[in-house]
């Protein structure tokens, strides 16, 4: 089995051991599940949004590695009390910076966190039935990296077949 050394830093380890804002949110305004075509991981993002379009609470669940757990956790902190527009603009690079760096092979774990959040925000506006001007019409790179469940299953099945 070939492996990469993964010298996670203290912050990643701490958030892995004691993740903040972990778990399903029963009174969420919106939630989105997103999967990672790179490694098959999935995360769920839950947002509680008030009438001013400010995120009051955010939480997550992750079927992923320590880096994914840590980046998702820190993102839920970073977007708290932020408007949806501000939250949309948090980049995965900013998260990696905030967490004190990640091994490069783990960047996609942070990209997935951003993708899932953006999917949730887009879904919120879809449900509301309107699109604010700042919301890009086309899916952004991060959203494209965060697949819906069926799409993920399909891609994984293909990759597994290709492997043989």
């Amino acid at each position: 089995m070939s492996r990469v050394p993964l010298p996670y830093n203290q912050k990643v380890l701490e958030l892995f051991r004691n993740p903040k804002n972990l778990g399903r949110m029963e009174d969420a305004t919106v939630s989105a599940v997103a999967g990672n075509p790179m490694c098959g991981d999935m995360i769920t993002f839950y947002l509680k949004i008030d009438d001013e379009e400010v995120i009051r609470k955010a939480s997550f669940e992750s079927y992923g590695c320590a880096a994914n757990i840590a980046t998702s956790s820190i993102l839920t902190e970073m977007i708290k009390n932020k408007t949806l527009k501000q939250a949309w603009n948090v980049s995965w690079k900013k998260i990696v910076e905030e967490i004190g760096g990640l091994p490069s092979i783990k960047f996609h774990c942070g990209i997935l966190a951003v993708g899932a959040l953006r999917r949730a925000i887009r879904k919120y506006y879809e449900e509301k039935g309107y699109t604010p001007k700042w919301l890009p019409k086309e899916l952004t790179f991060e959203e494209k990296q965060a697949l819906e469940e069926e799409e993920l299953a399909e891609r994984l099945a293909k990759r597994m077949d290709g492997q043989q």
Partner: protein
Amino acid sequence: MIENVEELIKAHEKLEREVYLDIENSSPVPEEVVEAMLPYFTTRGYGNPALTHKPGWEAYEAIMKAAQKIAKYAGAKTPEEIAFTPGETEANNLALIGAALASKAKRKKIVVSEIEPVTILHVAKMLEEKFGCKTVKIPVDAEGFINLENLEEAVDKETLIVSIAAVNPEIGTIQPIKEAAEIVKTRNPNTVFHTDFSDAYGKMKLDFSKTDIDLATISSYKILGPRGVGALYVKQGTKIEKIIEGQIATQKFWPGIENTPLIVGFAKASELTFTDLDKNIGHMRRLRDKLMNGLLSRVSDTLLNGPSGDKRAPDNVNISFLRCEGEALTIELSLKGVYVSSGSACTRRLLQPSHVLTAIGRRFEAAHGSILMKVTRLHTEEDIAYVLKVFPEAVQRIRKIVGSTVVS
């Protein structure tokens, strides 16, 4: 990143117990073995075994005695049939590439199974690209067994070499290796039969000289010897060539100065394993079943990967914990002093799940939460009891993070 590693190690302070089960990837070396090696670093046999002085002759003597011992345990006819290499990877390379060089690339077909170790598959791929060889991969069933009829069909007059591991290192499947070698030789006596015997050496009884096996890779660290040394059994008359160039050494297939202390350590570890082999195997099997059955009964939603009972290597445990990501689980267990590895895509450079688990038909999710463990003759009942105590909590913690994200 060095500071990070220091912190990671510090996070492990005050552990109640440490149990190392990642024998697949490296192993500790017992005191006894180190003691046997030490004089060859400092006071004896530090010379070049090919040269004419006392420290050289001492080295030569030590290497010959080591070869004699290993030849005896492996059932080789003569010590000359044991070719020391710097490890299993090198021995596997020597087997396949060495056979290709010796055949002058006249025969071009390589036959392997889908679940061969990564080294074998990579070397086969290289031979395809550089020598125009063609690899045929025979499938395995849900427990990892090859089908001898498929093997028979795959071998023809074009077949250069067949390589099938006697025991699969990931899922412990014990292949009918003797029969496989016979079938291959009956089909084509010129075909070279190689087996990666790394996970079988010291885990079962087999005399190479009583089989049709031509080449067999054996490993030192997998029997608690030092890393950096291994051997290829080369049956007399087998056509292979050396694959690297350099100063001719006592080892005709591996130029360069022999690493006498490591070879001595390898022989010592072999001696400790093979003296009382039955007892050692019995001990491992008992602990294996305790660990395996203990985990399967204490944790819900699990799958055993590979066969059980006598068809499985006595040391191997491989279980998939569904709704649980493997890399996260290895870290959680490490923080509790239990060291294991996972076949999850997240732990791999190419972010691909284990090819072995895929080949036995496991779905992505099963590979994602798979954990590989191996017990040794030195593990104790207390070690296993400790693992069984902390493991369920660890799975539970990771599953809590997964929450409702996946439903199985």
